[in-house]
């Protein structure tokens, strides 16, 4: 059963189309990340599901009830869809407990639900505080608790972590993921952060220019993107022109094994992830190259290597010690099969 189904949803603001036919299914109890660059329409998508915007065409069902469709527009307060906005948007005049209790009816307030969800987000005992006495991360936790409190079938999170610093973000992501799971809530997370989407979600839906171009499990979408743009958007990608011959493609990195037989014959673009490229001392079997630059990231390093004919590729090395230096000659081999796109 799907908690959220969107079918060919369209929405434009005057001459500007924000959604040009969105199809999306979110299974019950899952977390779906809608990932896209800014301006791709992902916030509009969220506002349409919440009911803040009226859709122009298409249908949205939440928990098997049509909330938007031809001639139907259920107002936001009857949709049972809770939102966690970017900046938390806690009610400044209400205490933490009153914020969390806002969506609850009288019996539910007395049932201990408020303390329960506060504990779920790691803020047990904070009920009496006022929002301005909390840190940014704590405010965001309260916003999540407030959304979960009425047990809505669907929770929408609109880039809830983007305003927080990196150190805080990781822990909060995990806790929010756990809280959603513990409560059995279905979540839609809108984000432009690939790492966030890939690490948190059960399903990643990549959005571009008002449509979902690909949806699937994070690993599947990362390994098997539908086109070069998605490949590039989801992480570092080496895209090289190549010629197909049977199950292999001939490129600047030598012959590469194809993950799937491609129907596109002749000239294609192949996707090699930097972690697939292994560096060896010069002379070993492989394609020769020269180190042009390296970006050290602590846990790994990205090494940019120049090949013949001014082709450059990027390799990810985990143990940068002994480090390669700029100007070093290296030998490159590609590990595992690669994906080919029609050029």
């Amino acid at each position, binding site marked *: 059963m799907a908690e959220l189904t969107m079918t060919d949803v369209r929405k434009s603001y005057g001459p500007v189309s924000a959604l040009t036919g969105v199809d999306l299914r979110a299974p019950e109890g899952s977390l779906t990340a809608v990932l896209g660059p800014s301006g791709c329409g992902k916030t509009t998508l969220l506002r349409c599901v919440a009911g*803040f915007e009226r859709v122009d065409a298409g249908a949205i069902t939440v928990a098997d009830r049509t909330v938007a469709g031809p001639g139907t527009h259920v*107002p936001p*307060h009857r949709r049972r*869809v809770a939102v966690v906005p970017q*900046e938390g948007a806690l009610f400044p005049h209400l205490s933490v407990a009153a914020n969390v209790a*806002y*969506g609850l009816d009288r019996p539910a307030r007395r049932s201990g639900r408020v303390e329960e969800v506060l504990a779920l987000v790691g803020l047990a005992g904070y009920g009496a505080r006022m929002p301005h006495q909390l840190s940014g991360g704590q405010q965001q936790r309260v916003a999540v608790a407030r959304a979960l409190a009425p047990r809505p079938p669907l929770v929408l999170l609109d880039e809830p972590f983007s305003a927080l610093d990196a150190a805080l973000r990781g822990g909060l992501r995990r806790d929010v993921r756990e809280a959603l799971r513990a409560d059995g809530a279905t979540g839609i997370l809108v984000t432009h952060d690939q790492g966030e989407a890939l690490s948190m979600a059960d399903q990643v839906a990549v959005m571009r220019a008002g449509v979902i171009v690909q949806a699937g499990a994070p690993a599947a979408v990362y390994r098997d993107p539908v086109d070069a743009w998605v490949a590039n958007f989801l992480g570092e990608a080496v895209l090289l022109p190549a010629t197909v011959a049977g199950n292999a493609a001939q490129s600047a990195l030598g012959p590469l094994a194809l993950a799937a037989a491609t129907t596109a014959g002749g000239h294609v673009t192949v996707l090699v992830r930097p972690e697939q490229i292994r560096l060896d001392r010069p002379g070993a079997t492989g394609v020769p190259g020269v180190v042009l630059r390296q970006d050290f990231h602590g846990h790994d390093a990205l090494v940019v290597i120049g090949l013949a004919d001014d082709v450059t590729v990027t390799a990810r090395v985990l143990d940068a010690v002994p480090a390669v230096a700029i100007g070093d000659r290296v030998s490159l081999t590609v590990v595992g099969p690669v994906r080919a796109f029609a050029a």
Partner: protein
Amino acid sequence: MAPRPALLLASTAAVAVGVLPLLYLAVRAHDAGWERILDEIATARTLTLSLRSVALAGVVTAASVVAGLTAAYLVTRTDLPGRRAFGVLAALPLAVPTYVAAFAWTSTIDGFAGFWAAALVLTLACYPYVYLPVAAALAGADPAAEEVARSLGRGPWQVFVGVTLRLARPALAAGALLVALYVFSDFGAVSLLRVDTFTRAIFTAFSLGFDSTGALVLSTVLVALTALLVGGELATRARGARYARLAGSARPQTRIRLGRWRWSALAASAALAALALGVPAFSLLRWSVAGVSRPGTIAEIGQAAGASLAVAAAGAGLTVLLALPVGLLSARAPGVVATVLDRITYLAHALPGLVIGLSLVYFGINVAYPLYQTVWLLALAYATLFLPLAVGSIASAAGQSPPRLEEVARSLGRGPWAVLRTVTLPLTLPGVGAAAALVFLAGMKELPATLLLRPTGMDTLATQLWTQTAVSAYAAAAPYAALLVALSAIPTWVLAARTGVLERGAA
């Protein structure tokens, strides 16, 4: 998201109530015949009156902007000694009715009359209309913008002109508009200081010649001038410019050290307070001591004070009720409709209380007889007169509470009215309080409409004061005046405190 259609309906109804006096003008003008009216308009006298009223409004507005802006800057941004005390003192002239101030000056200086005398008295009475919103804007502005300007190599003066002044511009323009409109409608000061302006001419036409057509024509011209002014202020505004304080930037302002200018600034602030407050206070004291007339009994004074408080409270309540939908509409659904509705409320604001009074007498007798001779007709007069004061402060308060909060509330299962009650109104409450205080204050001081519309036998502090001074019983008038100023000082203090000038910032 407030319920738009309901909000629109309520706003339209509120504005319709606000323009009742204009309808009266239209009806009477129609009765008189347009040809006669055109004849009356095209006279040298109308031109002279127009020019003089516009000139007076121009001088007073310019002087009020200078005084209000300087005072606001000194108390919010500098290390002026005693700036918290001056923060309140600068607002207090709002508690002094112009007829009291004018009388204080004429009785202190012989031969104090004419255009420049009126300009001085009106400036001293009106500059708080600029001071209060500008002080609030300066105290609430995010210091980051100014710091960035400094870091980009601009000197303090350039930052003031290029950044600070621009941030404060919406508040400055709104305050200046109120001052100009107040000068158009003021009767007390111009009549006591013998300046022939529209209001004085309208009053003379009504009371002496029974020439209501002449008065009507003058009122119509006044409405037209107001429309021009209101439209002009609108045109100077950048489209959609809203300089609300952003969340989380509650950092206090860094204060500028005045250095050797410290004592001149102190002297200027003290002089302003002495002129605006000291002269009336001194004069009131002199009346009580030197006068021969006997003041009324404590009971009489108490009764008048009670009546003043009652009518002002009724007026404030009704005005706030009418202003709420208009303010919420212009904050939540800004657009042509909201702007037009908001601006229409200003048209009646510049009409003299006398015209409002007469039109509501007409309305009471012909349309709503049950209201005639009740406090509610007077409250209605205050509402039509002071609606824009209330709409402005409610709209700016509602603008401060982000619409996102209302969306979250909706998503948590609360209907539009529940959201209005539990989120929007509590967050707008400070603005509603300020609106009520402003209208209450204006209602306490209002004279002409009160004289015309009060129920028979009811005397307020303002009408008693007027009655006593009309027969030169100054000692008898003094306690009424003192009590009126003292009671008006309370809402004024509330307004000053709200601007944030009382908060202890970084030294």
